[in-house]
């Protein structure tokens, strides 16, 4: 009996990994045969980082059951720490994969530590209050980085909150973070293949965490905190564990994302981004890891796809401007329709019939995936 349950879990995990790997090869073939536009190819890195973000946020929202609206803040910490590291080490570590690996690691660690620092006081709150405070922390992180100047010379690192000149560097010094301008001159180390590897790594960590002793403790807190305490679960410890792992993975996604640009300002990691990630999680189904992946992919590609389609339809007509401008409107309508459609009882019943033989798995899936 024991083997059967483990196999079921492993099987479900393997299917999830499999979807990613197959998607990778399909896209590689599409690129090789030139059936994918350059514009779409440029989206791939973004899609990969959004998938990681959605899966990591699902750990907080779906598995721990706490609403966090500051996920972009952790991404921001990871991105800037990782980018600073890469710029500082550009001349020192010339082997790119190693440098990028270290940048990812350091960025994730930094975001994880910030997650612990913020989570320790904040996770005592519940529900709406927690959501509001995480929202505030996300904005605070963004705005703090927005005024930081950092430079490096042979004497080491210099910090200031005024301007580049007040860093007081030697002549050979380079300014790494320039306040509102953000970071410039990053090596563009990110690519689609690395993105897929990072997605697989994220899934490996999150799925295995959920299916372990700690994961059960985390989910028991979500389901009933009073009962969890009554059987001796250390609630704050496990809340913090889930929250900081979620933050660290967001930080890793941030490092990956920022390394696809030459320069970037911290204002990108704002409230809107946090909400977009939350939309992926909610639309994909709270607690469903596979759902997060699919929702992140579809919702990131959709606006761009709409742009391409609308442009090709209305190229010669007078209304072209109106239609292309209504792109976001159509996107919103599709979002609403999908949300209603996804959660309607009739659709659930229909999918239940359609996937009749998977129905049992599905009821089991809710607890593991």
């Amino acid at each position, binding site marked *: 009996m024991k083997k059967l*349950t483990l196999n079921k879990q492993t099987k479900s995990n393997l299917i999830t990994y499999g979807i990613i790997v197959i998607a990778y090869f399909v896209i590689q073939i599409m690129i090789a045969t030139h059936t994918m536009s350059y514009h779409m190819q440029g989206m791939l890195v973004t899609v990969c980082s959004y998938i990681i973000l959605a899966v990591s946020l699902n750990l907080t929202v779906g598995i721990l059951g706490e609403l966090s609206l500051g996920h972009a803040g952790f991404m921001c910490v990871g991105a800037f720490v990782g980018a600073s590291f890469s710029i500082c080490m550009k001349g020192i570590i010339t082997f790119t994969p190693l440098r990028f690996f270290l940048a990812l690691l350091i960025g994730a660690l930094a975001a994880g530590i910030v997650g612990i620092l913020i989570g320790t006081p904040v996770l005592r709150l519940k529900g709406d209050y927690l959501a509001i405070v995480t929202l505030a922390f996300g904005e605070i992180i963004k705005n703090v980085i927005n005024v930081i100047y950092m430079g490096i010379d042979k004497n080491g690192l210099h910090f200031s909150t005024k301007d580049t000149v007040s860093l007081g560097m030697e002549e050979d010094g380079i300014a790494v973070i320039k306040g509102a301008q953000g970071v410039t001159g990053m090596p563009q180390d990110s690519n689609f293949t690395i993105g897929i590897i990072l997605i697989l790594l994220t899934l490996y960590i999150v799925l295995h965490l959920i299916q372990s002793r700690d994961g059960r403790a985390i989910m028991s807190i979500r389901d009933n905190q009073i009962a969890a305490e009554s059987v001796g679960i250390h609630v704050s410890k496990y809340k913090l564990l889930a929250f900081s792992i979620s933050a660290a993975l967001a930080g890793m996604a941030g490092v990956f994302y920022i390394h696809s640009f030459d320069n970037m300002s911290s204002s990108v990691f704002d409230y809107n981004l946090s909400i977009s990630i939350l939309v992926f999680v909610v639309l994909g189904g709270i607690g469903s890891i596979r759902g997060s992946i699919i929702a992140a992919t579809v919702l990131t590609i959709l606006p761009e796809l709409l742009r391409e389609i609308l442009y090709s339809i209305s190229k010669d007509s007078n209304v072209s401007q109106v239609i292309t401008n209504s792109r976001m409107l159509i996107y919103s309508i599709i979002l609403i329709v999908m949300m209603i459609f996804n959660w309607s009882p009739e659709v659930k019943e229909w999918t239940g019939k359609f996937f009749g033989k998977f129905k049992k798995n599905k009821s089991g899936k809710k607890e593991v995936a």
Partner: protein
Amino acid sequence: MALLEVQNLGISFGGLRAVDDFNLKIEKGQLYGLIGPNGAGKTTVFNLLTGVYKPGMGIIKLDDQDITSKKNIEINEAGIARTFQNIRLFKELSVIDNVKVGLHNQYHYSTVTGILRLPKYKKIEKEMEEKALSLLEVFDLDKEKDTLASNLPYGKQRKLEIARALATNPKLLLLDEPAAGMNPNETKELMDTIRFVRDKFEMTILLIEHDMKLVSGICERLTVLNFGRVLCEGPTSEVLNNPEVIKAYLGE
């Protein structure tokens, strides 16, 4: 030496003395009942014993160890487990995972071991699975082990809650109205189960119950609460024939 000794326990909510000068002594292996009219303070006593509320006064001793004012997690570690009047299961977890959460503090491996699935993970998960299954078998729940807890019928949910509490390996088990909402057949089955648990696990059990059939059927001693105070205490047959108890609770 009594397993549980409570002296002068009291708590006030605002100006209301919900529990006042409450004394209780339970010997090891006893099946003890706490009865009384609605609002008498029975569940408040449970919440005081398990650390949900902090007592305003009094001492609670478990196995000669002072557990007064400790947190509910520490009290569980000291050896008190409970069930709830309104069932509190982990609804989105499977039946067996509910029990495994109860086993949480007896089996250890690190987070990293769990994520990397090192050999220790497999070994300990296997032990947990076996232990959880053996507990489920006691309550005849082993066939439903992969069902979501929320999908179980009511009577089985009550049983699962007891199984989960037992999984924490307690010295004392507190059952808050275990027969609430059960039909006579289910209640009878539950009585057998409670007796069986006491014998098999050599458990000491304190229960709150309104079902007098169950109380007179299995409890050896009773304490009657009325308006937060102990009205009467003693062997079941004596207490149930006490004129004051009949007047205050049972009805003439």
